[in-house]
């Protein structure tokens, strides 16, 4: 039986989206000040994770991060004043995705912050992500006390410039082979980045030694990377954004180009419909909690980090990371294999360059097709951290969350409309 004309046109468009994803050649090349590369990021403009949201609908940790970053930028004297300013409309809020950026959890991006730069050398586009702050009480989980702000100042004034100098000295670091190796070492690049962080450090350390201004500063920088198992997460996120952006705007393509959440809504972009958001209420992660915390403390899911799943990593690569499946409370090693196999049901193809040893070198499932999501009811599995629902507390656990089906259903109807199919 021949395929319908519409189905055939979508297949051709999706093949092109897949081709662009697989052809991507992402390199970590620099660290820059946000104000220098994001021309539309003006004073009192705050970029956040997820689809658009205003102060009134923001969750607790997002509000905490907004207050903290406003103090960091010098727009408010203290957290209380920052909250009052936000309440009175003193800040403009926009999604990171509108500015070639991504950010984990609350995802704050403001002019003074230093951003990682990933360049997709196959297509010439760049994507940006703030530097990972480390574990514990951090702004991405809504932390905003003096220690949190001091760490961001150090990342901005000392660490960021040192990392940027090293990357420029190296001529950049190719990320595709780094990811390929990390997958063979137990990373899925969302909740487990210990291998890729270590591999990055091995490449960076000699260059940082050559370009560092002094011994103690170098020691602090190296110790920071070495002490942060999630250092590579933000690199992976900027990489995901750099890979996905060339796949945007392909007429008739039903491939998902972004998935993200702001703690209130989950949003997706689909290639054929460009920058149009399709949203649904975000779900609560199911996972494990740190001692002293429980599900009653948890905030609904947050962050642009699901860009990692959008390129076939994270929950889609769970089979590569049997250690993670227990950490996020999603079962055992056999369950990890099953989750990756399940994600194959909703993707266009496997990525042969990112192979998973435990699946006989099968590539990670790549290019989510909203048609397959709606047909099967299987929604993307996303590995995630869990923030406390109150501002200022921080991370309380880690788990797995499912993307809500409603986003995919409304996106499918919109694509059908653009194709004149009712």
């Amino acid at each position, binding site marked *: 039986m021949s395929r319908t004309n519409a189905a055939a046109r979508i297949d051709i468009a999706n093949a092109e989206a897949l081709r662009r994803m697989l052809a991507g050649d992402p390199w970590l090349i620099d660290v820059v000040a946000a104000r220098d590369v994001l021309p539309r990021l003006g004073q009192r403009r705050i970029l956040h994770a997820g689809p658009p949201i205003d102060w009134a609908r923001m969750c607790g940790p997002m509000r905490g991060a907004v207050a903290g970053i406003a103090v960091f930028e010098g727009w408010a004297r203290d957290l209380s004043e920052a909250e009052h300013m936000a309440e009175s409309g003193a800040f403009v809020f926009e999604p990171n995705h509108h500015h070639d950026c991504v950010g984990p959890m609350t995802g704050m991006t403001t002019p003074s912050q230093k951003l990682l730069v990933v360049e997709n050398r196959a297509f010439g586009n760049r994507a940006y992500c703030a530097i990972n702050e480390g574990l514990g009480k951090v702004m991405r989980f809504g932390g905003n006390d003096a220690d949190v702000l001091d760490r961001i100042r150090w990342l901005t004034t000392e660490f960021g410039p040192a990392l940027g100098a090293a990357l420029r000295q190296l001529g950049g670091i190719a990320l595709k082979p780094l990811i390929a190796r990390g997958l063979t070492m137990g990373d899925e690049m969302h909740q487990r980045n210990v291998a890729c962080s270590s591999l990055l450090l091995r490449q960076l350390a000699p260059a940082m030694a050559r370009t560092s201004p002094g011994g103690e500063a170098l020691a602090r920088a190296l110790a920071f990377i070495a002490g942060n198992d999630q250092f590579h997460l933000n690199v992976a996120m900027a990489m995901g954004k750099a890979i996905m952006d060339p796949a945007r705007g392909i007429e008739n393509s039903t491939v998902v180009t972004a998935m993200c959440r702001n703690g209130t809504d989950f949003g997706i972009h689909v290639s054929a419909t460009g920058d149009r958001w399709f949203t649904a209420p975000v779900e609560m992660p199911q996972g494990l909690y740190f001692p002293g915390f429980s599900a009653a403390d948890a905030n609904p899911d947050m962050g642009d980090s699901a860009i990692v799943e959008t390129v076939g990593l994270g929950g889609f690569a769970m089979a590569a990371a049997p250690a993670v499946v227990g950490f996020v409370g999603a079962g055992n090693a056999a369950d990890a294999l099953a989750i990756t196999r399940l994600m194959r049901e909703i993707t266009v193809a496997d990525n042969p360059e990112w192979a998973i040893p435990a699946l006989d070198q099968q590539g990670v499932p790549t290019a989510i097709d909203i048609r397959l999501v709606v047909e099967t*009811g299987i929604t993307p599995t996303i590995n995630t951290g869990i923030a406390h629902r109150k501002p200022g507390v921080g991370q309380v656990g880690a788990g797995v969350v499912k993307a809500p089906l409603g986003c995919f259903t409304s996106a499918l109807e919109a694509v059908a409309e653009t*194709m004149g199919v009712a």
Partner: protein
Amino acid sequence: MPPEPTGGPPAEAATRLLADGPSVINVGLESFATELAGQDRPVVHVDWVPPAGGDPRLARLLAKLLT
């Protein structure tokens, strides 16, 4: 008029079914398969749901966009 039963292969199959018991392929609701497995009957479960969860409007749309 339906044809008269003639014996032969269908009858042989029926005899085998009575003698050996059924081999079952279960499609959809897993509880049916679980019930049979609990009685030591051979059963293969196929994990299947209707397209779009049985929503007829979305199923019609998918028929045009996917097949």
